[in-house]
């Protein structure tokens, strides 16, 4: 590296571009300091500080985006690269930042409910949550494979701890071990793919006439090399391996093997973080790669489209069919999440086929998935007993009568996940189908439709448990019957009500979604 690079790296105004991530990290450290300094009685306020900090960052981020978009001198379409091409600040990435912040807020909300029922240390959980959220934001905005991998590993390592957080529970420990082993495997696969791509990009290409390669790890240079070649098997293998590594994160079949057990064993807030945050980060990365460095025509036609199509078909079918027989609601969420990943993969395939707004459709779907999932997870957190992993369908019996509010939020959340108008999930699915139609993906469409119809059974089956009149026979033996669901307090009601209202609103009006993304 020459001195100029050091100069750029140390220029403080570049660090300013990463202020949300830096702030999150600072708050995470502050939490640990406060735990040392404060009296044990005052520890209650520490999670609140974390939540407050996230809200402040979210508002500031939204404000700065609004301020910049009102400035006529800033080019809104252009992507700005910083740190010598490591980080890209783009509307796409900004949307990702907001999404991850919203996810982290939702997870904090769940954690507040969860830790009321569990005798576990809280502060470290919030610390990890903030660090992982910051790493996800970096991951979404990374434009170079080194930063990409480091951010991804930060996320994964954070999750190793968060999954196994409930040390007294064998389920949680089992989940942690499974996630550790399979996560390490996926990291290895991803790394191997990155190395192959590095090898392709770093060797001299005098015949390709693309000029000197500045940084073989960067997406832009890799894209130039891949675009100028036709059908390099080494590159194809690298791309396929990278995609497989990402497929682990989004839980697409056949890389879904960890999902049901980890989702069940992990504490509910972690499950929600995995379901929404990890999946969203995976899709952001996937879209970044598919529309960025991997967009070369030969690559998308020979590798991306077939591979992703198969992943989508298998995910939709497997996720829906496997969820049919489940009685544990956390496993239902996990397996149906696989199906959701499959639907979104259809959108990614459409994006790879050149439908320009398909990426936005996937993002909109993720947004509706966030709203619906957190509504459902919120109800789950309230209904769950002390044994977090034993959340069975039977525990929801008569919820609509005992707790009409929770029953209503559950119905809205599940309805949205199932894709029923006028809820947001329907518009999400519609946009994906629309994009698939535009890309002529008729087989994928047929599979998706089939999946949606199958999913009605388990989503509505869950709703049936909660809202239908019960035949009067207790389905669980009395010893195992769960304690009655906790009644949500004021702020809990507000949060759940907001989620349900937002789900309804986003189903009725979509004008709020940023124009440039769709």
């Amino acid at each position, binding site marked *: 590296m020459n001195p100029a690079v050091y100069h750029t790296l140390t220029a403080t105004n570049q660090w300013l571009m990463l202020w949300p991530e830096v702030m999150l990290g600072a708050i995470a450290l502050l939490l640990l300091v406060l735990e040392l300094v404060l009296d044990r009685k005052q520890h209650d306020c520490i999670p609140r500080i974390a939540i407050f900090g996230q809200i402040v960052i979210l508002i500031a981020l939204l404000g700065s985006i609004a301020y910049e978009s009102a400035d006529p001198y800033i080019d809104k379409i252009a992507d700005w690269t910083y740190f010598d091409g490591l980080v890209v600040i783009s509307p796409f990435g900004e949307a990702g930042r907001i999404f991850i912040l919203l996810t982290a807020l939702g997870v904090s909300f769940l954690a507040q409910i969860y830790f009321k029922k569990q005798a576990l240390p809280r502060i470290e959980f919030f610390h990890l949550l903030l660090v992982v959220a910051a790493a996800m934001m970096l991951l979404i905005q990374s434009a170079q494979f080194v930063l990409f991998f480091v951010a991804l590993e930060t996320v994964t390592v954070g999750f190793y701890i968060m999954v196994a957080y409930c040390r007294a529970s064998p389920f949680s420990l089992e989940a942690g071990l499974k996630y550790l082993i399979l996560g390490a495997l996926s990291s290895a696969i991803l790394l191997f793919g990155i190395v192959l791509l590095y090898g392709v990009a770093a060797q001299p290409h005098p015949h390709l006439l693309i000029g000197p390669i500045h940084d073989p790890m960067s997406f832009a240079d890799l894209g130039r090399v891949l675009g100028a070649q036709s059908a390099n098997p080494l590159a194809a293998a690298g791309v396929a391996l990278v995609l497989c590594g990402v497929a682990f994160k989004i839980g697409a079949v056949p890389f879904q093997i960890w999902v049901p057990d980890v989702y069940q064993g992990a504490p509910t807030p972690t499950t929600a973080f995995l379901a929404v945050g990890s999946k969203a980060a995976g899709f952001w990365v996937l879209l970044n790669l598919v529309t960025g460095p991997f967009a070369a025509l030969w690559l998308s036609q020979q590798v991306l489209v077939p591979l992703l199509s198969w992943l989508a078909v298998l995910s939709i079918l497997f996720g829906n069919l496997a969820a049919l027989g489940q009685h544990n609601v956390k496993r239902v969420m996990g397996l149906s999440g696989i199906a959701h990943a499959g639907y979104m993969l259809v959108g990614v395939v459409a994006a790879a086929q050149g439908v320009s707004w398909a990426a936005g459709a996937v993002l909109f779907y993720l947004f509706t998935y966030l709203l619906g999932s957190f509504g459902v997870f919120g109800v789950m957190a309230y209904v769950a007993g002390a044994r977090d992993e034993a959340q069975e369908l039977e525990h929801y019996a008569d919820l609509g009568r005992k707790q009409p509010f929770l029953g209503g939020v559950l119905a809205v959340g599940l309805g949205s996940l199932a894709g*029923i108008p*006028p809820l947001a999930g*329907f518009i999400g699915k519609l946009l994906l189908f629309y994009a698939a139609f535009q890309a002529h993906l008729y087989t994928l469409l*047929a599979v998706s439709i089939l999946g949606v119809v199958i999913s*009605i059974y388990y989503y*509505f089956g869950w709703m049936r448990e909660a809202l*239908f009149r019960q035949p009067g026979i207790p389905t669980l033996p009395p010893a195992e019957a769960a304690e009655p669901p906790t009644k949500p307090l004021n702020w809990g009601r507000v949060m759940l009500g907001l989620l349900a209202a937002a789900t309804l609103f986003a189903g009725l009006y979509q004008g709020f979604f940023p124009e440039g993304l769709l």
Partner: protein
Amino acid sequence: MTSDSLILPQAIGVPFVAGLVLLVKGREMAPWLARAVAWVGFLVPALTALCAWWIFSMHPAGTPIFEQSMTAATPTQLLWRTPEMLFPFERDIGLGFLGLTLKLGLNGLSLPMFVLAGIVGLAAGIYAMNTSVDRPQAYWGLLLFIVSGAMGVFASLNLFYFYFFHEFALIPTFILIGWWGGPGGRAAAMEMTIYLTLGAMLSLLGLLALFFKSGAHSFDLVSMHAWTLPATATVPSGHKIFGLLLFGFGILVSLWPFHSWAPTGYAAAPTPAAMLHAGVLKKFGLYGLLQIAVPLLPGEMAGWSHLLAWLALGNVVVIGLVTLAQRDLKVMLGYSSVMHMGYIFLGIVCVSAMGAGGAVLLMFAHGLSVAALFLLSDAVFQRTRTYDFGAMGGLCKKAPVLSAFFVAATFAGIGLPGFANFWGEFGVFVALWKFSPWMTAAAALGVVISAIYGLRAVSRIFYGEPSPAFQTLFDQPVADLRPGERWPAIILLGALLLVGFWPGLLSRGINESLPTAYQDLRPSGHYVLTLNFISETTAAPTPAAPPAAPKP
């Protein structure tokens, strides 16, 4: 658009908001206030629909209505022959680039259905408010959602919203069956929802395909129509798209053999939900075929008409025979409503003005009569505590008004002259004769079947001696129809009689708005016959003998 009419949004929005208020805040409200909110929610759509109907029939074709709301005669409006889009309303919801805007409007085909939804909604609402149920506010709220969705289905001009409102009305049905429904509701609700979602998804695919293939770049019915008409029957792969629409909509209408969800679902549903679903929502698919599939893909019906005609005959004859074998009043009604769908399909198969007009009239009439029958059979159940024919008898001595109403509703269902059903079936039979005389004969056989089971039900319930088991119940006083049951029945039967004696109220509008698809494909003489049919009936309301219904 600056000249939006707020009439249609109000008919959809008021019940929705009322339902939302009742669901969210209903339990904390004073009972009278909740009841008042529900009344507003049920009354506004009905009155709006009647008002729209009145305005429509006061302004014959060609005269401008709402001067400021009708933009200059654009080509699309000329193609639709009449002041087509009454009460237009359009809003961008942020997906305008995909052709998705909220666009509402009425024409002569959708107006009868819109009125039907309003009337049946009001009747079901009055009935629901006069029955004592668990958690009444939530019950009314969900019913209001169904009403809102049903009004929306028939008022939307955008294919996307057409679908959207239907699905929206479906889910409250699921919860209503589950919570307030009868035995067997758990399985029936699930079967119904999965079946109907499958149908809805197929039709959504068909609509999307239509959108992409038509090249209109809009989901708007008017502009799609304008695009399709000049290039008649040149939509690529139209045959497949029509098939998707046909079977998607067919499942929603319980086309044989995709009907199995309907009888069990209706038997398990609480009565107002069954009234709304069998009476109104089930017409969604037929309306879709009439208003969307056939006009937008003219000529494609020809490739499917024989298959569809056979299946529709299956509805009429096979399900008719199945209905004959039923011993349970409510299940029998469910099957008979499946059976009558066959006539409407047969009317659509003909692709003629007569058949389509008859189908619309029959949809309107069947919706009212089946709702009345569901209501009255529940009234019977309230008195006898059973739906089993074998255990009833002699009820007419105790409840003469109920039995009179029931007999009237049964006659309407059979298609006796004087009720609107007659004109619908008449039109369908006349059109079907051109299509295939022997099929007409087979369909007429269905009228005999429906007369048999209808009259047998009447005789078992109301006449004869009470069974021994029944006698104990009869020794206690049995009340006749209460006002809360009487008024909804009067509303429904009154509307049936009104249109039965004055079909021109509806047929003129239908005549004006029938898309050209129904007129181009047949010799011109046929079209003249239609006009004659309509004008004759308007002039001479007293009908001649029914074409096929034997005197009972």
